[in-house]
């Protein structure tokens, strides 16, 4: 016990002594929490649209302002040919080309049906499908309008119609910050916990000081505890700082219990520190530790559902994500912060993190050999 306290004192001194690292650890998360949620806004608006009007009729002249005034679209080009509009799409100046063919009004009135054409830049799948959906609903509104005006004999009321009443639960104002801030906080804690602990141990390997500890009578588990506890404390500090920023800047107050949050945090840090330790046991140099850490953090950040939905991944990937502690902790954060979920609701995620954490730590301890460097 006494040895552990001495070790802890040494570790804390070493961490606190290095101003650069400390600055990065404290300032980087705060700045990122201030900036990044602003970037992660997915509400699709400002879809730029290039319009080709071959009809020049009353209808087409009424339809175009309807599209541009909807708030979703901005008109970037009004071209003479479809080819020119497509060039605008190619050059990334427009997301969508919309063509009203010649004789649109005549066909609509004489034959009761007319086509319009849209070509969407579908590289970004969501923007494409949402843009298409918005334009479609504007078209059907317009369609209903002209029906009432042109053919009062058979008004829209004649056909049966299903209305949709929709409500948004848990976040009625669709405030994206509520959703993204907790997740970004998790990614920041992840980078800190798993990676910093790995680097720290590998640094001792590289500079040879680990051998001095290895020949000392310090027990293996005490050495490991001495390495892990400081980062556990740092992780909790950064997390608290992040919650504070979330409250002061974004007005986010967790709807659930803080005890639930912090208990989950400790379990999460336990798992991630285990991963850091495991990386350390497999790395001989900091370059290797860096490659491995970057590999894992990048995968965690992109696949744990921070920015993209896990549900839309293929089944094998979803199974893989089940083993990621960050994915579970992000779910817990969102559930507790937004929905006020309690221990009962998050039990599964908590259990999953505990199992993965125990496995990682056991593996790391078994793999850590005190005798060889």
């Amino acid at each position, binding site marked *: 016990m006494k040895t552990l306290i001495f070790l802890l004192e040494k570790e804390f001194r070493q961490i606190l002594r290095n101003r*650069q690292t400390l600055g990065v650890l404290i300032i980087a998360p705060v700045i990122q929490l201030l900036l990044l949620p602003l970037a992660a806004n997915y509400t699709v608006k400002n879809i730029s649209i290039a319009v080709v009007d071959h009809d020049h009729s009353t209808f087409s002249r009424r339809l175009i302002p309807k599209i541009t005034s909807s708030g979703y679209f901005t008109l970037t080009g009004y071209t003479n040919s479809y080819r020119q509009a497509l060039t605008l799409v190619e050059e990334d100046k427009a997301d969508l080309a919309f063509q009203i063919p010649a004789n649109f009004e005549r066909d609509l009135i004489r034959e009761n049906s007319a086509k319009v054409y849209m070509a969407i830049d579908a590289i970004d799948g969501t923007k494409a499908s949402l843009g298409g959906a918005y334009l479609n609903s504007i*078209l059907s509104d317009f369609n209903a309008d002209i029906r009432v005006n042109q053919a009062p004999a058979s008004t829209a009321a004649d056909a049966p119609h*299903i209305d949709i009443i929709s409500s948004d639960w848990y976040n009625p104002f669709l405030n994206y910050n509520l959703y993204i801030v907790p997740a970004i906080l998790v990614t920041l804690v992840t980078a800190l916990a798993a990676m910093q602990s790995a680097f720290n141990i590998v640094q001792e390997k590289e500079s040879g000081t680990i051998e001095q500890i290895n020949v000392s009578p310090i027990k293996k588990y005490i050495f490991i505890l001495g390495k892990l506890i400081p980062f556990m404390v740092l992780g909790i500090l950064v997390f608290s700082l992040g919650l504070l920023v979330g409250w002061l800047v974004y007005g986010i107050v967790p709807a659930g219990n803080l005890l639930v949050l912090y208990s989950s945090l400790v379990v999460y840090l336990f798992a991630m520190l285990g991963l850091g330790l495991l990386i350390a046991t497999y790395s001989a140099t900091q370059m290797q530790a860096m490659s491995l850490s970057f590999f894992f953090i990048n995968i965690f950040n992109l696949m744990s559902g921070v920015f993209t939905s896990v549900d839309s991944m293929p089944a094998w990937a979803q199974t893989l994500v089940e083993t990621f502690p960050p994915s579970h902790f992000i779910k817990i954060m969102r559930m507790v912060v937004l929905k006020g979920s309690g221990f009962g609701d998050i039990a599964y995620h908590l259990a999953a993190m505990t199992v993965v954490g125990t496995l990682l730590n056991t593996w790391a301890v078994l793999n850590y050999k005190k005798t060889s460097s």
Partner: protein
Amino acid sequence: MPSPEMPPEKEINMKQLIVFIKKEFLQVFRDKQTLLMLFGLPIAQIVLFGFALSNEVKGSKIVITDYSKDAVTTRIIGKITASQYFTVEQSLQNADQLQAAFRKGTIKMAVVFPANFAEDLARTGKASVEIIADASDPNEGTTVANYMTQIINDYNLELDSIAGQPLQIVPDILNLYNPQLSGPPNFVPGVMALVLMLVCTMMTSVAIVKEKELGTMEILLVSPFKTLYIIIAKLTPNLLISIVNFFIIILLSSVFLDLQVKGSLLLLTFCSILFILTSLSIGLLLSIYSSTQQGAMMGALMGMMLPTMLLTGFLFPIDNMPLALQWLANIVPSRWYFIIVKNVMLKGLGFASIWKETLILLGMCVILFGISLQKFKIRLQ
């Protein structure tokens, strides 16, 4: 006075540089484990992300509560079940169960058909269906609600045509470049930019700071080698590794993800080398300001990773961001590289479409390298 047999100074310099580069290569290629990681891990990421990631929302779990159970609701439910956007879970009957399912996060949306749905529709010509979305993720919530609205509107259109409504406008939609709206076309260029940039930056900064940490840098600095040569020699192996990585990524994405380079491979390679050089210069700059490898890595991982991820533009459209962030995004090299890869690889466009982005990358590269060279000299004294 130098004797006439002595080779001119230029030649000595060249020789020095070659010897130096040789040394760096030996050092890098000696360490097989590290090398394996430097090649293997970035490639594994691209393949993994290419297969797994998608911005799309599909297969969302929803619950349908049908109090009416008539022909109309059965037809609409059939349409919902058939769509790839939704996975319909077993129906829950009361509000408490619904609330519990939302809290547990097992469902994203609930659709409620009130009793006497078909009857109302037939008699009064109107019926309402209720959609409740879990908006804790506003993106997913609104997207899912939009898809559901579309399905019900389609059904409305069917009702219209049965009723013989006049004046139908029929939209004809064409999805360019990515007809299936799949993930890889958007994510591969983005992840390529992200991974190449961060790996290059970290690799370079760590390699240089390591020499500082071990004290061997001082030996180099007091040697008669020119600073420029030290830098060039340090960067060459990393440049080579990254170029090989780039080619493997291109090869893998064409074999596994069915994403071939539509435009000129030569042009893409040229731009990629430019981008890699820019990233190496960032690493160089970072190494000058870091005294320990740990500091350099934390700077790169904590400071650069998330901003690069978000401001490259492959996760969130940059046009939607606040103006200040749009300016900030302009100084992120991967943002420009992402556009280049999209245009050349996916759209098959030529240099005319990317000259601006290429010029920006070139400018960044020159400026960053210039600053690094300047600062490196100061350290000499």
